[in-house]
């Protein structure tokens, strides 16, 4: 797979990598992926004042008209919230802001005063959708953040659209959330695993997938400090605080990138309970502890040193 054509570009405050099985189709795939990402950014970005999600947040307490893509992304986020028993919840926006994550990560204050209180997470059941009139309402004080699922959903949609447009197998990675579509390479898509998608040098693990999605959640990236205490971006909705540092990374393969991302994030939130939950769900998963020791579910392939 080394020789597979690929291209990279910045997106969503992180990086995208696109690979295709047909070298001549790479340009078409990249153009298609860019288009999908632009649409998602306009609908779901929490850092754009004109996005649908920010319109809903500003209009909390009232019905706000939204676009079809946002409605679809929100519906998926609510499905994920229910499927993870609320561990991955789109109403964590206010809690994230309270932690200091209130702007693009590149400009976030890396240090600040100690956090004295945390914002409660109202929970996904408070979100109201009126599909017929295509509008959404959240209660006053609630704030949506679709960051956990929108990027993964964008990867799924982009891979499907790009494969259709390019007529070949396509891999789309949006900040390390991967989706593949179309006929894969003969040996599958070879993907490295690391603490950070931008730092492929770290642990040296790898996996080959042929369909669906793969996502890794980590408590070691997007971190900052408040009062000298390290804070990361994965919020436990039951407390409004950063999830416990049991796992440094959790990687999950699933039928879609959305499901993989949800399972990986929920596993971080669940801490020690994660392995049994992933096992019950039949999901291939690799969980790496703070000290680097790894455990895996039965469906994850036995490790082969890279």
């Amino acid at each position: 797979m080394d020789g597979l054509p690929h291209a990279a570009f910045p997106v969503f405050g992180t990086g995208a990598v696109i690979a295709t099985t047909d070298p001549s189709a790479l340009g078409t795939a990249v153009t298609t992926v860019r288009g999908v990402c632009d649409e998602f950014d306009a609908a779901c970005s929490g850092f754009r004042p004109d996005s649908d999600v920010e319109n809903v947040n500003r209009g909390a307490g009232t019905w706000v008209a939204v676009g079809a893509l946002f409605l679809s992304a929100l519906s998926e986020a609510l499905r994920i919230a229910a499927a993870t028993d609320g561990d991955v919840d789109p109403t964590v926006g206010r809690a994230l802001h309270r932690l200091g994550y209130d702007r693009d990560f590149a400009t976030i204050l890396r240090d600040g005063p100690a956090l004295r209180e945390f914002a409660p997470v109202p929970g996904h059941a408070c979100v109201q959708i009126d599909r017929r009139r295509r509008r959404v309402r959240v209660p006053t004080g609630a704030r949506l953040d679709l960051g956990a699922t929108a990027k993964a959903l964008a990867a799924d949609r982009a891979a499907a659209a790009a494969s259709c447009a390019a007529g070949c197998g396509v891999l789309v990675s949006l900040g390390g959330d991967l989706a593949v579509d179309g006929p894969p390479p003969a040996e599958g898509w070879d993907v490295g695993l690391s603490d950070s998608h931008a730092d492929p040098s770290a642990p040296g693990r790898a996996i080959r997938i042929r369909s669906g999605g793969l996502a890794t959640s980590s408590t070691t990236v997007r971190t900052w400090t408040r009062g000298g205490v390290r804070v990361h971006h994965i919020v436990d909705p039951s407390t409004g605080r950063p999830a416990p540092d049991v796992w440094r990374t959790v990687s999950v393969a699933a039928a879609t990138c959305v499901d993989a991302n949800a399972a990986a994030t929920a596993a971080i939130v669940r801490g020690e309970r994660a392995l049994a939950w992933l096992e019950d769900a039949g999901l291939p998963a690799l969980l790496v502890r703070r000290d680097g020791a790894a455990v895996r579910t039965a469906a994850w392939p036995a490790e082969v040193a890279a």
Partner: protein
Amino acid sequence: MASDPIATRDSGLRRVSRVTRTAFAGALVLAGALSALAARELPGRTSPPAGNATHSHRGPSLLPPSGSAAAPGFQAPSGQGTAPAPLQPPVSAPVAGSGGGPVTSGGS
């Protein structure tokens, strides 16, 4: 010429019956119209899914009153109000890789 009292009574009863039917039909139409108007202007919400019960400790102060039934015109979001679609494993089981590809999955 005096009219037949029985015919007069029957005629009166028919008029009363017509008035009753008309009033009943009018009430039905009015009730339907008001229901449709209320459904459009005041969409309801679904009850929290059963799975959320384990998280009832989460910030209830921001929740609307629980248990209010969905009103006509409101469509529940996917996975709400019914059993959510579970997270699905991949169709093809993954195998060990070499890490030779151009892509890395990691936190972002």
